[in-house]
């Protein structure tokens, strides 16, 4: 795919890489249809609310230190600024730095939808610059400004000459895509197009795209063994740091969904290799990923020494817990960057996946390949029922009721509680490093074991609450509301 940073708009995942949000079948069928190009997503004539791509886009950008986000729209669009403020403060504090990023709204009203408000927006951009002197300013659209045709590109062009730092138009109308991960691409596009500079020199750094850098200290330590310095993106990144990411030896990512646009963009534009192995979750994932980094950065022997030493510490412990997990049945629901990776780890731990839900599915990544995690599973002869549903909770509940698994694993806020109400123990795979490397794979196995051992909480709750769905719904097939051929 050609990356065009002259255009501030980035095509949606649906249009760019054929991503879908509606499918029910098996992993094998999904992979087969993906590679032969016959996969078409279904639409739903009934859906429950999910996530806005602007939350993903601006969640990423607002985590960069000392920048300004100006969300041009009604006050609900910029309501996420409250959470961003909190996150910026606590994440910076944990890291021992300061973050003075500001995220403001423009409180657009009815009059603005009729007459437009580009003059007011220009003044707001200038005022934010006067108040805070940010290192970069991201000016973003909303559904309302998108529909009335507010030309934020022109506003940005006009104010640019009066502002010394990058001012970037970011197009994130929520109706553009049902795939909120498109928001990650939108953020990457803004960074690649306006912040990243062409390389001046090579550095011993490796770009590490993640969410909240919880494993930062240990990863920094680990990479010291290989004389590599990880640069974590974008939480607590500085604009200066970002301007140099084209000088790295490689780019890697904790989640394929999160990192593919940046990784491919850097590779194609500046020749920075993008690590495309399966993800560093679980033992096989971690070793495969680390070996690939070793290969790409010419550090294979140091990597092997490290792996050998770590295996000696952790493998016996993991094996011991595995004995107790073997035979459990699980359902999981996550973004596709995790669903198939975590399915693989569950298999490693002896847990059988009976149904895997992916919140969307990218039939190929930005380099045209099918996601490596699926290939890995199928090569090992693992197949299970699979559906693609953008957090459609009623479908999850239908599946849980039918299978009554020992365990539900989810990665999105607000979803685990429903499994518990069904009486199913749930593990919230919240932190992106929860299954990273040997140590966290061990912790993950232990977390599952603890959840299975003490079921008091879910039993207490499940026996006292009524589920919000009708009996009628539980008698339907899970694909009741899927419509083929529509989008």
């Amino acid at each position, binding site marked *: 795919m050609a990356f065009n940073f002259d255009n501030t708009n980035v095509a949606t995942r649906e249009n760019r890489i054929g991503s879908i949000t509606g499918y029910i079948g098996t992993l094998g069928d999904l992979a087969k249809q993906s590679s032969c190009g016959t996969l078409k997503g279904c639409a739903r004539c009934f*859906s429950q*609310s999910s996530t806005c791509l602007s939350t993903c886009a601006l969640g990423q950008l607002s985590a960069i230190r000392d920048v300004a986000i100006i969300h041009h729209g009604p006050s*609900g669009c910029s309501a996420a600024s409250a959470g961003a403020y909190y996150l910026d*403060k606590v994440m910076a504090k944990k890291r021992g730095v300061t973050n003075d990023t500001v995220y403001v709204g423009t409180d657009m009203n009815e009059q603005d939808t009729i007459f437009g408000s580009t003059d007011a*927006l220009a003044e707001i951009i200038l005022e934010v610059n006067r108040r805070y002197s940010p290192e970069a300013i991201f000016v973003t659209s909303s559904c309302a400004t998108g529909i009335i045709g507010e030309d934020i590109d022109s506003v940005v062009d006009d104010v640019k000459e009066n502002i010394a730092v990058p001012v970037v138009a970011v197009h994130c109308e929520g109706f553009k*895509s049902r795939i909120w991960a498109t928001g990650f691409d939108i953020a990457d596009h803004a960074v690649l197009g306006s912040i990243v500079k062409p390389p001046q020199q090579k550095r011993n750094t490796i770009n590490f795209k993640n969410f909240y850098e919880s494993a930062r200290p240990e990863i920094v330590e680990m990479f010291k063994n290989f004389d590599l310095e990880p640069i974590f993106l974008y939480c607590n990144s500085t604009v200066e740091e970002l301007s140099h990411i084209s000088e790295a030896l490689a780019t890697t990512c904790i989640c394929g969904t999160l990192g593919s646009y940046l990784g491919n963009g850097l590779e194609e534009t500046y020749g920075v290799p993008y690590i495309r192995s399966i993800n560093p979750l679980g033992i096989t994932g971690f070793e495969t990923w680390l070996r690939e980094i070793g290969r790409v950065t010419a550090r294979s022997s140091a990597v092997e020494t490290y792996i050998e030493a770590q295996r000696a510490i952790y493998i016996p412990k993991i094996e011991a817990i595995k004995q107790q997990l073997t035979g459990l049945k699980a359902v999981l629901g996550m973004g596709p960057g995790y669903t198939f990776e975590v399915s693989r780890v569950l298999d490693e731990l002896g847990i059988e996946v009976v149904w895997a839900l992916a919140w969307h599915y990218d039939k190929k990544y930005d380099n045209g390949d099918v996601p490596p995690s699926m290939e890995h599973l199928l090569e090992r002869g693992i197949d299970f029922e699979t559906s693609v549903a953008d957090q459609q909770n009623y479908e999850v509940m239908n599946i849980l009721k039918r299978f009554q698994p020992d365990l539900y694993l989810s990665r999105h806020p*607000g979803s685990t509680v*429903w499994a518990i109400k069904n009486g199913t123990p749930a593990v919230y795979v919240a932190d992106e490093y929860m299954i990273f490397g040997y140590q966290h794979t061990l912790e993950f196995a232990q977390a599952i074991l603890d959840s299975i051992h003490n079921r008091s909480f879910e039993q207490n709750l499940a026996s006292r609450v009524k589920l*919000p769905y009708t009996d009628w*719904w539980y008698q339907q097939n899970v694909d009741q509301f899927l419509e083929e051929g529509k989008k």
Partner: protein
Amino acid sequence: MAKLLDKQRYKCALGAMQTVQAITRAIPVLHSGPGCAQKLSDAIGSSGYFSPNIFPCTSINERDVVFGGAEKLETTIESALKVIDADLYVVLTGCIPEIVGDDTAEVVSHFENAAKPVIYASTAGFKGNNYKGHEQIIDALTEQYLEKAEERQKGLVNIWADVPYQDLFWLGNIRELEKLVGELGLTPNTIFGYRRGLEQIDKIPKAEFNLLVSPWVSVGNMKKMEKKLGLPYLHYPTLPIGAFETSKFLREVGDFAGVPAERVEAVIAEHEKYYYYLIERYADMFLETRVMAKQFSVVADAQYVLGITKFLVNDLGLVPARQFVTDDTPKAFQQQLRQEFARLNFGLAAEVSFETDGYKIHQQIREHDYHGYPLILGSYYEKELTEEMFGHFLNISWPVQDKVVLDDFYVGYTGGIRLIEDIYSEAVQRWN
């Protein structure tokens, strides 16, 4: 006109989905983009019988923007009635259908004979904030669901207060208001929270009057009900916190409802005795805390700024610095509210700014000389600022990150004591 919303403290009108969520077994059906519900919800008691990821949503896409989303709304409502076990379905419109001109009223009219009531409210984000959205829901109930009652139930009083979920203490506050009104021998009726749903909504027209406890939110709702349902209303603008204001509140409600004065005074006397038993025991701590100046500022919506200012001045003898009302109070109510801030004991008056720009609020707090370590009650945004000033901070208004509240409350005699506990739990952590 668009304005710089810096450190925002409210959401858009569609945030009223939380008002619907607070009515037991009522479900919002969103005609909006796919992510509005998630963006407008917080993890503050949201995973009840319904949570935002249960809310049916038309999840409008590019195609619907071009061709209209009416058809999708129709199937969404139809399916919601089949899939979700609710008593009341409230269709809420977001920005997109209102700009492209979907006729939501027409679609909803197809469900007039549905097994369960389906109503709708216009809550496009650009129509105002969630305080206004909350009013839209109550107006929708009045206009589309409630009918004038043939008979009134003696002593039945509907109580209305501020916005559920936006107000951290909404659940505890409304229960405590019910309790206080009940002690006067009246029968309170409210529609939000545990065991308050359609049955309570059905009772609204049978009440003798509406009691509104809010500076300005829902005044329009009361007028609409007065006109359509013939319900008179008592508007009590101050959230009564602590003994001084709660006793005044009980006298005014008693007077309006025709409760004998002796009964009212007996209730007050009993409460005040216990309240001052507690205050007396802790008065030494209040007086001898070295780390708190007499001056304070509240940064919150009108109800907490007014309620807490009156409490801290009239009960605890503190002195108001400038106060900041952040809910975008309509101009028509501002003058009246300023007068309330001028009615404090000993002729004291609090200066008040109606300000939605957090930068300006912080500038004014920084510039003010509190003559010691200030007490700041506000949003999470004031935490770092207060720390810089070596002051004491309490997170009482949205956004809240510093406090978890399940059913705690600040209203009434007990609520005043809770607020004191929270303030001094902060203060005792420092010696000087």
